[in-house]
């Protein structure tokens, strides 16, 4: 068995006296959706922040392996994680560029490649064909994604004027335009209605199956998690309490205890 795409070993994150993540280890592979669930304050978003370079972890090794190269994320700056290790995330509170158009949002995501194609703007300033083809390619790619998320007709809207559900999908498309090997989604279904939520499921499955990358997902919405994840990791107070296929996890007593509380266990067992 080769190295998994992402391997997290003994990750701990402490903020002063508070241990947000405690000795967490898990693997995530490509062409799979790995969900991280857990009650509020379990440390899910902290795991993401460590993975994407927002905080340097207190302890732990985070390794990404693709194309025979290994990247040690805990030593990299955030923008280099996105650019080189190609782990790209979305945010719990959507972070689009609200006053830029939908199309521009997707083109900004292809900045690194366009910068190289324009010789750091020199070729672009001179209007050389090399840059123009690169820009046309970037727009074509953006168009492809707009088509996939159904926003082609709204390409010139300001991103901030889109309805909430469209903003969520646009943020995912924007992350995908950077050509990641792993997409980290922080509660993508939050605030979506059931129909939009079903659409999101389809989008994530198509990202897994067609783009063949790994997806790491934090989610509260159990209908999303149970339906599309291939693997579920459950956190409680920063510790991993379960790790396995959705059905396994669902019937794990520790998970039920974490979600429903100690005193409800008897009741659940009685009902079962």
């Amino acid at each position, binding site marked *: 068995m080769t190295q998994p795409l992402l391997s997290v070993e003994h990750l701990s994150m402490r903020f002063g006296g508070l241990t947000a993540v405690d000795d967490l280890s898990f693997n995530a592979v490509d062409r799979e959706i790995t969900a991280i669930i857990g009650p509020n304050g379990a440390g899910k978003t902290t795991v993401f922040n460590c993975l994407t370079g927002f905080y340097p972890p207190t302890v732990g090794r985070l390794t990404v392996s693709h194309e025979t190269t290994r990247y040690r994320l805990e030593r990299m700056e*955030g923008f280099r994680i996105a650019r080189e290790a190609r782990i*790209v995330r979305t*945010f719990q509170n959507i972070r689009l560029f609200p006053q830029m158009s939908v199309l521009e949002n997707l083109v900004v995501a292809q900045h690194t490649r366009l910068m190289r194609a324009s010789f750091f703007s020199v070729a672009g300033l001179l209007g050389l064909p090399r840059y123009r083809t690169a820009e046309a390619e970037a727009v074509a790619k953006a168009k492809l994604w707009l088509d996939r998320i159904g926003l082609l007709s*709204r390409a010139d809207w300001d991103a901030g004027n889109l309805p909430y559900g469209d903003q969520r999908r646009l943020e995912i498309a924007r992350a995908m335009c950077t050509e990641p090997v792993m997409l980290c989604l922080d509660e993508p279904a939050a605030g979506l209605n059931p129909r939009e939520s079903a659409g999101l499921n389809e989008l994530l499955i198509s990202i897994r199956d067609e783009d063949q990358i790994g997806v790491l997902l934090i989610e509260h919405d159990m209908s999303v998690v149970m339906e599309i994840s291939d693997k579920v990791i459950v956190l409680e107070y920063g510790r991993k309490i379960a790790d396995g296929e959705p059905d396994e996890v669902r019937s794990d007593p520790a998970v039920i205890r974490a979600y429903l509380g100690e005193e409800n266990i008897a009741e659940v067992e009685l009902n079962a």
Partner: protein
Amino acid sequence: MATQRQDWFATLKESAITAAVAGVLMLPMIGLYTSTRAGGLAVGTRWIELAAGVFLVFLGRLALIRIQNGDRLAPILGGLLVIATGFYLPLPNGLLTVCCIAGGAIIVLRSVFVWGNSQLQASANQNDNPTIAARVQPFLKKYGPWIGAAVIAFAIAFPWLPFADRRLIDLATLVLIYVMLGWGLNIVVGLAGLLDLGYVAFYAIGAYSFALLSSNYDLSFWACLPVAAMLAAFLGILLGFPVLRLRGDYLAIVTLGFGEMIRIILINWVEFTKGPDGISGIPKPTLFGLSFSRRPSEGTESFHQFFDIPYASVDRIIFLFYVALGLALLTNAFILRIRKLPIGRAWEALREDEIACRSLGLNPTNVKLSAFALGAMFGGLAGAVFAARQSFISPESFTFIESAIILAVVVLGGMGSQVGVAIAAILLIGLPEWFRELQDYRMLAFGALMVAIMVWRPKGILSFREPTLRLHEPDGKVGK
């Protein structure tokens, strides 16, 4: 009947309060003035003007309330009466006449076009902005190139127009310098969203680079121009490094300090910069080596000798105007172009959300430093032109108020808008000169103008933004 009396009472009370506030504000500005007498300053009073002003404000407020209540005839008549008063009564001074006529006219206009508070609120909320943009964009798309060509043609023809005298051309050069400064600062503030209160430092660096290089090494304007621009850009990067982590208010304070630092260094480093005495005798730019002096130095030829035309001292001013115009157009072309390149979009993305930028693999350090460097570069260019125009520079020209004016140009123009910044520069630099006839009240009128712009267009004169890339034509069908 009782409610109507109540209504009148409330109206009068409201008007009286407004008049009282106006009275308090006007007391130091209009009621008191200082004059030089033998043995020092004396404070004089202008009670009649003050009383007239307060009375006008009272009437104005009364009229506005009547307009809001739907009564339009009485305010129109009252306004006309006030205008007539302004015209026919021998008022004690000119300002009062102007105030009467203007105040009356405002009341009449407001009652003819009922421009209620609700509408004001709507424009403040920016709800109408997309519609304005939607209305203006097809128009600009269609006629934009023509309007731009017309403006450039006017600018080129400007020195030869009958009303353009020496003073006006010189003023136009100054306006162009501020247009360049505004566009340069616009990169930093409008596009990259980094509030810079010390922009004058780069202006000073540009001016002093040219002044020192020309006076010490006898280099020409054209040789110094790129050096001035590069030195300013280098300083921009130097300033950029320590402030990379700062945003908003903190960034503003550090840049403010930086601006002051440069000025204080210029004052105190006497051996190098000649300190507060400044540098004089800065040469004017030449046209391919042809100078614009009456008697050129030995071995060189001057413009009028070469073309065999009589010497006119205004030629030099006209030429400098064209130099400034050329550089401003170059600046504009450069910025319009770079806005559509990845680096320009990265600046705007940084303004919108730095964290999202980082998560997409953009290096915020490079993005910020490039914005600082390019913004500073245009400041340096403008500084060199300024030094050439003045022939004399001293640290006095580069005080904080200059930074504030440049920032005001950018904010009033509409952050990120090239045309808006140009219009604002004309208003802010040109109008105070025209207002000179108001004498003491010049700055008062200037302030009133700024307030008016901010009330009318809270996000600047031209605040809508055209995307750098489009998939669909902006014909209003697709989009919104």
